[in-house]
């Protein structure tokens, strides 16, 4: 297990040494987002903005207009919904080289409750023209995505959860991780599970359970929600009998919607189910309890997969 937030902070420190133009902004949550690691190493390039997220985003855009590579961080709920207009005007419309890296995305924030459980951020950011949207699945991939954010020009958003996550990638796998390219973690001829972020682990768990029942499920880590790896979606739609998406996000507007759009427009006619939070707010609780109650679990994937195989 490792924490993607730690990976973010460590990646910033490493990249900060390599790229002197990187600057980091935070809104009074640097201990939680781990930008504090960068702040300690490069205090002159770290800007504490206080609890003033709107100002943080527009200030980051101003810094970017002078050739800096700003990473702006706070919790996902404050990094997107609260500052949508600032991101829209100053980052997306301005095609600014601003990197918004959010932590505490999804419902696994847990006990803080629905006020802090951001389940619409991927939808909001995906709707913005020119915006790249990522949800890395483990600490190693997070490190790689942060590196790609620093070295790829343009507006980008990435989010990770709060909790520790199993490490899925080895160091030698990382170079093959590229923005806009899904990673086929497991090959399977019966169905395909597309997952992102924390749900990749659940998908792998479901894959093992299904295998015991003789169902071969493929698992694709779709760390980039936009631009979506359409080629991968179409490949899986043509070579398997059903597609399931799962994300720690509302089923409206995120990975599931993105995959559905591709399938519908290409008349794939494949069985399809979106898993994630239904059209509702959740509640306080332990992450595992919430995943179970709100249907974000390996068990639900297994159930859907079985139904896909049984039905004609």
């Amino acid at each position, binding site marked *: 297990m490792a924490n993607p937030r730690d990976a973010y902070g460590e990646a910033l420190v490493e990249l900060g040494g390599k790229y002197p133009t990187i*600057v980091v902004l935070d809104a009074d949550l640097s201990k939680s987002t781990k930008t504090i690691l960068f702040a300690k190493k490069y205090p*002159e*390039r770290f*800007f504490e*903005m*206080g609890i*003033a997220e*709107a*100002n943080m*985003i*527009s*200030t*980051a*855009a*101003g*810094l*970017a*207009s*002078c*050739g*800096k590579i*700003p990473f702006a961080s706070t919790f996902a709920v404050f990094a997107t919904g609260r500052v949508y*207009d*600032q991101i*829209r*005007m*100053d980052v997306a*419309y*301005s*095609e600014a080289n601003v990197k918004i890296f959010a932590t505490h995305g999804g419902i696994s924030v847990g006990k803080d409750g629905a006020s802090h459980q951001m389940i619409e951020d991927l939808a909001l950011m995906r709707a913005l023209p020119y915006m790249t949207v990522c949800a890395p699945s483990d600490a190693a991939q997070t490190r790689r995505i942060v590196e790609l954010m620093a070295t790829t020009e343009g507006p980008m958003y990435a989010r990770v959860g709060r909790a520790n996550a199993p490490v899925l990638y080895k160091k030698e796998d990382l170079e093959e991780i590229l923005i806009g390219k899904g990673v086929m973690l497991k090959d399977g001829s019966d169905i395909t599970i597309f997952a992102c972020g924390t749900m990749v682990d659940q998908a792998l768990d479901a894959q093992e359970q299904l295998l015991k029942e003789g169902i071969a499920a493929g698992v694709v880590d779709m760390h980039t929600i936009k631009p979506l790896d359409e080629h991968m979606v179409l490949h899986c739609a043509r070579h398997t009998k059903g597609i399931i998406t799962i994300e720690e996000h509302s089923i409206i507007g995120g990975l599931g919607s993105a995959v559905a759009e591709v399938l519908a427009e290409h008349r794939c006619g494949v069985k399809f189910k979106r898993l994630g939070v239904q059209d509702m707010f959740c509640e306080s609780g332990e992450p595992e309890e919430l995943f179970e109650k709100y249907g974000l679990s390996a068990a639900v994937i297994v159930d859907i997969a079985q139904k896909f195989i049984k039905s004609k």
Partner: protein
Amino acid sequence: MLYRAKSGHPGGSLSAVEAIVALYFHHMKHNPKNPKDPNRDRFVLSKGHAAPTLYAALAECGYFNVNELLHLREINRMLQGHPVCTSIPGVEASTGSLGHGLSFANGIALAGKLDKKNYHVYVMVGDGETDEGQIWEAAASASHYKLDNLTGLLDRNFLQIDGKTEDVLRLESVRERWTSFGWNVLEVDGHNIAEIIDALLAVNDEKNKPSMIILNTVKGKGVSFMENNIDFHGVPPNEMEYKLAMKELDTAERALEATF
């Protein structure tokens, strides 16, 4: 421009004229032949609806052909209804949604400090615009970071769409507000170019504090029937009004030329 475009914001464009002229023609270090010169002074028009005045200044300076001004707000042309930094030479920030520009200017000022550059950033904010909470986040941030390379110009024309600023959402005392946020505050006649230039020179010497120059202005300045008339915030003149306005402005121009 606005008559031809049949839309736009004459009132707040006219109140901003002298300050923008003072900046682009008398004060800022800038080079229309090299709009991205890293050492240039910057101007951010936070009140983006005054775009026509900014565009006119940029065109007169030579950032682009003055003929473009005749195609404001037209499809397939460069000049958008509100400023866009990605496609219009000389425009520093895309604005139009109020309240962002001061924060954006703070970012430019922070970068200047970091890179030990001598440029100065100017940002024009509307008085009604300071209803926005983000302005006060940015005001606190600029003084916290001691951004003495940043100067705000507040277009104090006392009017916004729904009425007088003091009736819509009371702003007074404007001077005390900015002072209490840690800013160096000056106040000038916003239609007196000499006074504006004096203030711009004075703030260059200010250390450790951002400065705010309150421009006391008249919305719709220069056109008798537009002056202090809120009906001309976001409505262009009709044909009769256009002819009358041009006649008044031509008369004023001739009177001005006669004094040289």
